[in-house]
């Protein structure tokens, strides 16, 4: 069952996949085929997950999202044959790798600013999201990512992992090394903060 807003604003066109509309029952077969060298199966896994990875990375590693995503897939391919688990574990694995690679990239390039973004005046907000998203066709998605980037990093990350990554609270908690309660609180605070930003700026997607 889809939320009401799905039908209103984002009902998928036929044949267009929606993030979070996961592979589902076919996942085990697709994964096995990919592990045995099936490129079509691997392509399906990639196509399903890469947009989500990119949206996550464009918030947590805005200047290196594409590089980190490519780096993530290199790691995934290397470990693909050893991976065991269902689709939830698969997604958790992908995003865990992406997060580590993003942290490595941030440390290496010293590009990640640690100060809370909401304390920065609007004019000084990083414009990298704009640059990275120039080719993005979905104006709504671009704006949404930009809005998420205005949240405190933990709140934005938790929301993205839950919404884009399709991970549940416990999986996010394990990935981030925090308690499920802390994850839940961060997510809810982030959504309230988002509502506040939307109300203040009058942004509509």
């Amino acid at each position, binding site marked *: 069952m889809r939320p009401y807003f799905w039908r209103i604003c984002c009902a998928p066109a036929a044949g267009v996949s929606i993030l979070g509309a996961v592979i589902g029952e076919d996942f085990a077969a697709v994964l096995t085929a990919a592990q045995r*060298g099936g490129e079509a199966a691997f392509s399906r896994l990639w196509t399903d997950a890469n947009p989500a990875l*990119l949206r996550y990375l464009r918030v947590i590693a805005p200047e290196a999202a594409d590089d980190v995503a490519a780096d993530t*897939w290199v790691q995934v391919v290397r470990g693909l044959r050893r991976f065991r688990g269902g689709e939830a574990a698969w997604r958790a694995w992908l995003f865990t790798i992406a997060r580590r690679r993003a942290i490595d990239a941030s440390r290496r390039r010293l590009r990640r600013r640690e100060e809370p973004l909401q304390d920065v005046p609007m004019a000084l907000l990083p414009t990298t999201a704009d640059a990275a998203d120039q080719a993005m066709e979905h104006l709504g998605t671009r*704006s949404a990512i930009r809005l998420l980037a205005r949240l405190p990093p933990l709140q934005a990350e938790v929301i993205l992992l839950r919404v*884009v990554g399709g991970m*549940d609270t416990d999986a996010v908690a394990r990935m981030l090394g925090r308690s499920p309660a802390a994850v839940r609180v961060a997510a809810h605070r982030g959504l309230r903060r988002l509502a506040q930003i939307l109300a203040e700026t009058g942004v509509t997607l």
Partner: protein
Amino acid sequence: MPNFPWPARSDVSSNEDTALAALLAGTEPPAGAAAAGLRPVADVLAALRAGPASDELAGLAAAQAEFRQRVGAPGRPKRASRRRPARLTSRLGVRAAAAAAVAAIGLGGVAAAAYAGALPASWQQFAHRTIGAPAGHRADHDTPVGPRPAGPAAHGLCTSYQHAVAHGNPKEKAVALRNLVKAAGGPGNVSAWCAAVPGNAHSPSGPHPSPHRTGPPAGHPSPHHTGPPHGHPSPPPTGPPAQHSNGRRMGS
């Protein structure tokens, strides 16, 4: 837990939490004021979940190339499993392979030496037992080498021997002579033995030029020796040693 009546504020907060949880999970939020107030947030999350844009799929070719290189290619599912041993080999290093090759060549050389009977006695015995190589010096008994004095070659051997003796240099190490000495039962018996061989009776240098053979090699070789079909030499004076048959059995 006591069932306290919740204040209104908590009801609102609880409803909002439920709505937020539903938004995060992507499920239908409960209808109500909280959900209605979160409508703009719901729109943002829906935009985050929207279908992939073209630039988000631009990296597929690179990922496929990486996949082909690391895991395999379509239609060739076993390639990946073949890659592993190859990588393993390279990890073990060329050294192991080189060592194996050296060992193989070395063993081959030893084996060749063993079959040539050129190893030290103890090694030769070992090779004899394990790979059936000639059993060292006893190989002379086991494997007939050179002309057999028991066969039709006796005449030629004796002629050659007598010729050599006449010229003062019998090559005792020559295979033919060795066989002759063995057949005769000792170097000193060769002349007598040869005297018994038909056709050597009138040997010019034979010390016992008796035309009528009565010598020690009784019964052997036959005076009417014309090449017996039995190819196994059994020199009468010495006879086959016990180790002979033993070694032969073990060797074969």
